[in-house]
């Protein structure tokens, strides 16, 4: 009897705790041309365990955790996008540089979502804004650029708010990957850095040994940029 009462009380308390969404997404290998770059990848603890929480009188209480899924997304993406990646537990420093072209460190700048009650539409929406930070092999900040992502899912019969928001967040994460892959060589400041890095690679014998095609890389990059731009214009 006591167990039953306890169970009911726990169930009621969980019911009052708001909406908890744990995003568990799995992402496919992207079909992209590999960049001849050796890239260090650093995820901060905050990024690995990212959890968006909101307490709103009108909206209710929500907790959306995307940490593990976004790490999985970027791991899959970077592994295909760059010829070599190296996971880092800390950012390199002047005293302890590492042998990479650069270090990429994504950060979540903002997450927003809407539910059908707010917009009077029949869809759940999730927006995520990432800031991609690029550091030198010695840990000096080089540049950063934003990656925005959007996902939506329609309200469906027998589908809970949790399921709908998780689905919208997975669509948004896939979109982040698509945005990164298609815009990487179109961000002007990144394009300049890429050209410099690839040209440097072409003249440097040691890098040439690591990347045998690096002398063709600059031309390949230009062709890839032209193709992507043409494709996205259509």
């Amino acid at each position, binding site marked *: 009897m006591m167990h039953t009462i306890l169970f009911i009380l726990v169930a009621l308390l969980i019911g009052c705790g708001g909406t908890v969404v744990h995003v568990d997404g799995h992402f496919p290998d992207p*079909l*992209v041309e590999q960049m001849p770059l050796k890239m260090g990848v650093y995820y901060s603890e905050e990024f690995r365990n990212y959890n968006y929480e909101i307490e709103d009188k009108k909206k209710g209480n929500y907790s959306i955790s995307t940490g593990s899924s976004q790490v999985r997304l970027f791991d899959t993406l970077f592994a295909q996008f760059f010829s070599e990646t190296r996971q880092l537990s800390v950012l390199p420093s002047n005293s302890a540089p590492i042998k990479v072209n650069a270090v990429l460190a994504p950060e979540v700048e903002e997450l927003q979502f809407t539910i059908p009650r707010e917009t009077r539409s029949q*869809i759940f929406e999730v927006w995520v804004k990432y800031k991609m930070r690029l550091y030198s092999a010695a840990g000096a900040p080089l540049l950063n650029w934003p990656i925005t992502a959007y996902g939506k899912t329609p309200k469906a019969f027998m589908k809970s708010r949790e399921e709908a928001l998780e689905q919208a967040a997975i669509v948004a994460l896939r979109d982040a990957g698509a945005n990164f*892959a298609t815009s990487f060589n179109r961000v002007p400041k990144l394009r300049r850095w890429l050209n410099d890095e690839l040209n440097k690679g072409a003249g440097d014998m040691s890098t040439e040994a690591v990347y045998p095609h690096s002398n063709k890389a600059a031309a390949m990059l230009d062709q890839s940029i032209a193709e992507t731009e043409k494709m996205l214009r259509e």
Partner: protein
Amino acid sequence: MNRKLYLNKRIRWLKLSLVALTAMAAAVVLAGCTTTTINEMRQGYTGITKSESIVVLGRRHKSDYETELDFVQCIGGEISGQKANVSVIPEQEFADNLYPWFEPRTAPVHLEGLNNLLQREQIAERITELGIRYIVWVDGSTERTSSAGSIACSIGPGGGGCLGFGTWDDESLYEASIWDFKNLTTVGKIKADAKGTSYMPAVVVPIPLLARVKANACKGLGEQLRSFLTSSEES
């Protein structure tokens, strides 16, 4: 005295049951009121061999609605069903195989975009590996256009129940555009428009009598697509 009270109770229950049965019968008759209109526009020859496949994809780039995943799956099921022997690749499998080129942000909206995509060797190879012959883009949604009525429910120590009547109208509007990968042309467009009214009479227990608007739109559009794609006209 007790017997009279018992009889009165019985008569009241019988009356209630009669009202409920009448409402149910009326609603069953009316619930069948779903109309589906299919329009086909052929722009080229079609036909498919056993080694070729079809993929049905939902358009998801508009901001105010989204083509439902279950509707796209339903269309795929209709095309491959009925002993048609047509291979339909699931939407998710196709999108995963070609990630990130068929996401809402990147999917080609026009044939020129597809042509440009195919300039990339990896993409062209992957599509050939999958044996895709036709891509069917489904664009549209099912929406509630109006609703009326009210149902009140109450519960007490002696029991509970509902009383009232609710009704609503749904409309499905979908358009399927068929692209031929082999010839890089649009071979046709098929539109499905389905409308229907659902009812919910509630006498003690609410009885939902749903108009299967979306299901009818899927069946109509799916059957038409199957006949369109498998027609024996030379390709």
